[in-house]
């Protein structure tokens, strides 16, 4: 037995040597093909739900041309310089406002029109390059949020759904920063519920303009924005001639009149960003200023929200990279008990964690940005949401650990660390809370997989012997062979041989994830929508799988083209994959029926008992009954 095994191992090792040479070729070929194959419906994340890896989409790691690289380096340098020298983050935080001088500087750098096409006076950068700039702008949370509110959501509506006239009319001034945009969706009712939108736009009698009334809350840039993307209810007549209320997106200029802003909100973090209420009172909006179709505002809002998230990954990574520099400096100089801080294992662990998180975030962010940059406006909303969830949580964890390295120093307002902590807390909340995004990630995939599995499961429930036998044979085969090969590693693989183990782990996770999704759909059907704890685990596994894919793809590329310090990347990638593999296995085990690791029923019961009484239930430990 042992002999057979060692033989197999030797054979594997041999093939690996050959594979290395081959992979380089394959990678080279595919990188050419990768840019040529243009599928409008990219479905990397969705395919994972079927237990498949769509290699062509994640491998090889997307890259930009030398000219683009040159361009971005030329852009990054002055921006970096500006942020280092001319931005006083402490002052912005204390005074809760960005000084006009800083704003002018940002405008001069063109940072208000990063993604606006050059023909409208913007920089016309791709998503990848936008992500790169995001790394720098995240040096100050307030500025990053102001810029994001302006262009990631505020004017995105014009870019995505605006017509040429709207573009030529508004984009130039928005690109230069002369006008600033804001995105007005949230109303006092609740953020994610379209039913809570009470703002109303009524068409005037001459049908030339809408009269807009309503209030919006928590609008970033609400105090000084000139152009608002506003969502309001309008009366629409549908096919059957029935009158319905539907949401429409409007472009509203402050100059239209009737627009007032409340006082800036006092916030925990990103204090320099301007967040206010915005009220519209009989604001007359010309019909030309409807974005998209009347009654089609819901789609516009969804698209804007979905497209704005991916940059959070690079921004968080940029922040963590700077934090690593700052804290490493401290750990290398500070002495405790005659030893430097950096010599303590518990401190080293924190640095490893931060580096790994930054590495994964970065990999995910640029992989997603690269996917989005492929022609045909591919839909990467699930991938972008995964990046957002992973990076926001990673950022919060890393900032907290950085603070821990610094001890009491990190807690002091004289140092920037506590500001980073406050600023990064919002990442888990805005642009869709992580809870909501997890539902989105899991449900989108479940819907996709469900559609495909419907037929199969239906047949099985009917008792079709053929399908049953097929599944049985498949199961038997899987249990006997125990070899899962999705083609990532090996002679025809896309992953570098030094990452083979990790690739195998990824394949195993993907395979069992597909099986689990299958089982979940069979068990819960469409009622899975109410199983939020199940969906959360599904989303977590998927995020980990996507992260593993991203690091494997990136590290493979780095080795293959011989990037500096690629051995460090391999180390990070392998460590991360091993950890994620373990986490995934645990979660997948929890998702099995009657799993002893799954405590959902008890968790729900605890919560129910507490919420029933709206208080902590237990008696005080010092209470007596006699």
């Amino acid at each position, binding site marked *: 037995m042992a002999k057979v095994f060692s033989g197999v191992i030797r054979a594997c090792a041999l093939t690996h040597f050959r594979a290395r040479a081959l992979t380089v070729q394959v990678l080279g070929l595919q990188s050419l093909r990768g840019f040529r194959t243009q599928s409008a419906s990219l479905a990397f994340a969705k395919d994972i739900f079927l237990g498949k890896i769509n290699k062509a989409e994640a491998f090889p790691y997307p890259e930009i041309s030398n000219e683009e690289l040159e361009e971005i380096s030329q852009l990054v340098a002055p921006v970096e310089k500006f942020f280092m020298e001319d931005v006083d983050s402490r002052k912005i935080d204390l005074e809760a406002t960005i000084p006009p001088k800083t704003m002018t500087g940002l405008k001069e750098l063109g940072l208000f029109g990063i993604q606006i096409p050059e023909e409208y006076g913007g920089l016309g950068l791709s998503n990848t390059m936008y992500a790169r700039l995001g790394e720098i702008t995240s040096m100050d949370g307030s500025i990053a949020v102001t810029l994001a509110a302006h262009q990631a959501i505020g004017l995105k509506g014009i870019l995505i759904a605006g017509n040429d006239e709207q573009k030529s009319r508004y984009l130039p001034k928005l690109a230069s920063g002369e006008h600033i945009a804001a995105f007005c969706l949230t109303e006092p009712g609740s953020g994610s*519920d379209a039913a809570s939108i009470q703002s109303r736009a009524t068409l005037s009698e001459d049908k030339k303009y809408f009269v807009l009334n309503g209030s919006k809350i928590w609008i970033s840039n609400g105090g000084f924005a000139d152009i608002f993307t506003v969502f309001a209810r309008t009366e629409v007549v549908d096919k059957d001639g029935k009158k319905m209320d539907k949401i429409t997106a409007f472009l509203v200029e402050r100059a239209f009149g009737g627009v007032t802003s409340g006082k800036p909100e006092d916030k925990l973090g990103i204090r320099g960003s301007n967040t206010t209420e915005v009220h519209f009172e009989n604001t007359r909006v010309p019909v030309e200023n409807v974005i998209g179709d009347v009654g089609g505002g819901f789609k516009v809002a969804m698209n804007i929200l979905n497209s704005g998230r991916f940059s959070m990954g690079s921004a968080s990574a940029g922040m963590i990279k700077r934090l690593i520099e700052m804290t490493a400096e401290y750990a290398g100089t500070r002495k405790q008990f005659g030893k430097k801080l950096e010599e303590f294992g518990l401190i080293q662990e924190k640095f490893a964690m931060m580096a790994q998180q930054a590495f994964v975030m970065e990999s995910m962010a640029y992989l997603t940005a690269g996917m989005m940059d492929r022609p045909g406006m591919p839909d990467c909303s699930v991938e972008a949401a995964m990046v957002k969830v992973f990076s926001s949580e990673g950022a919060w964890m890393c900032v907290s650990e950085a603070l821990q390295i610094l001890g009491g120093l990190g807690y002091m307002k004289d140092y920037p660390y506590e500001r980073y902590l406050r600023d990064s807390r919002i990442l888990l909340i805005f642009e869709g809370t992580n809870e909501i995004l997890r539902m989105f990630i899991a449900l989108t995939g479940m819907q996709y997989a469900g559609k495909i599995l419907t037929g199969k499961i239906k047949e099985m429930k009917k008792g079709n012997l053929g399908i049953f036998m097929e599944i049985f044979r498949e199961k038997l085969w899987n249990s006997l062979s125990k070899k899962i090969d999705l083609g990532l590693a090996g002679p025809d693989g896309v992953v570098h041989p030094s990452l083979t183990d990790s690739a195998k782990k990824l394949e195993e996770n993907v395979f069992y994830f597909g099986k689990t999704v299958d089982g979940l759909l069979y068990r*819960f059907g469409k009622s899975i929508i109410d199983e939020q704890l199940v969906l959360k685990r599904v989303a977590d596994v998927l995020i980990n799988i996507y992260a593993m894919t991203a690091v494997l793809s990136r590290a493979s590329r780095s080795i293959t083209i011989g990037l500096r310090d690629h051995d460090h990347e391999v180390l990070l990638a392998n460590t991360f994959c091993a950890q994620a593999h373990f986490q995934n296995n645990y979660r997948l085990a929890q998702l099995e029926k009657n799993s002893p690791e799954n405590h959902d029923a008890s968790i729900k019961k605890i919560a129910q008992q507490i919420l029933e009484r709206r208080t902590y239930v237990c008696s005080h430990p010092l209470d007596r009954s006699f």
Partner: protein
Amino acid sequence: MLQLSNWICWSVVYVGSRPPCASKMNATRFLFHTRSLRLPLLCVGGLRNKSVSSGPIAVRQVLSSDHCARRCLCSKPVFSRDPSQSEESQDKPNKSLISYDDLFERAAVDSKNKATFSRVLDVFKNKDVRRRGHVEFIYVALKKMAEFGVERDLAVYNKLLDVFPKEVFIPRNFIQRMFNHYPRQQECGVQILEQMESYGVMPNVETKVLLIQIFGKKSHPIRKYQRLMYWFPRFKHVNPYPVPRELPQDPVDLARFSLHRIAADLNAKVTLYQMPSSDYSEDGSLVCQPYIVGIQSPDQREVLAKHRPDRPVFVEGPFPLWLRRTCVYYYVLRADPLPPEEKVEEPVDPERNFFYPLELDLDYDRDLGDDEDFDVDEEEGPVYAMCMTGSGDRDTLAKWISGLQETNPILGCTPTVFRLDSGPSEVQSCAVSDHPEIEDVLQGQKMAQ
């Protein structure tokens, strides 16, 4: 001789079943004792003195144990003091019973309260050093406690226990321990604890100390005490919906409390539709306005707003609600459930959630193995609101409905049918029963259901 006494000592030790290590220590001391006593007494004395174990009170104990042993041997009549059993012993307790009853009657002349009750106990205690007839006295006192309103007062129970003479009834040897020692007294002690139990009075350390002083560590009353202390704390909070012992006196407050209790919804709001008042009208007759207190939660309001105005709503009642020994009555506003064919499921608006779909477009449902829902055959109609009022006549309830209309305009165009049972509608208090606590528990269960 020495060996003999030694043997006796060991046999005593084992029969008495004391812990072995303690008994070894005692053995030597005991040896010393038996030898110092006269030989003929060996057998009896040895048995008797077995309990003479610890130093300072030993002498007193020897004396009193002598006394009690004698009583034990010749105390057949004491055992059967039950009035029904022996003719000769019937007179005495009866006589004394009357006299003790008298004691309380005399004390109750000025007022029946804790002070007078305690005074009676003091009088009895100080009257006679030997506390003759204390058992009879205690039985009478137990009966009178409710009358004096001290039936839930732990201090009074302790004082009552204090009436027992101390140390007299503690068994001194294994025979006494084996048989029921002073059964009448022990029975009486247990009776005190039983009454405490039935009134839900939890004994405290003082009670325990008294019981040990009176009956010793392994007596029946102590066992009873231990059982009480085992179960009482466990049952103290057995009702998840406790009713306070003192209910609000004001009927409006009581209604408020009761409505919150049945509504079981923290969002529900109580509205006082009409204050209770009585006025003389123009023709001089007394006009009483009964109170009307209603409760409605936002959820109920929402469901009511969706009610179809062509279907009637019903005002039904009165339904009883028991709060300890008080019964109150309430009325509900409800409708019949929609017949299944008229039910329309509201479709989920696909443009509702900006972030994720609220409904999956799949056409298979939950697998049977994971379906943990109950099938409820008979569905009850929705309850829209509840109220309590001073008088359950139609006019008053109509006022409630018109008050509800202010927040639920749909009631204005919906036919309202009054389906009222004739019956008691006033707040009632049932007679005090013998086992109030048991009743409380039953009520608690009823309510929980």
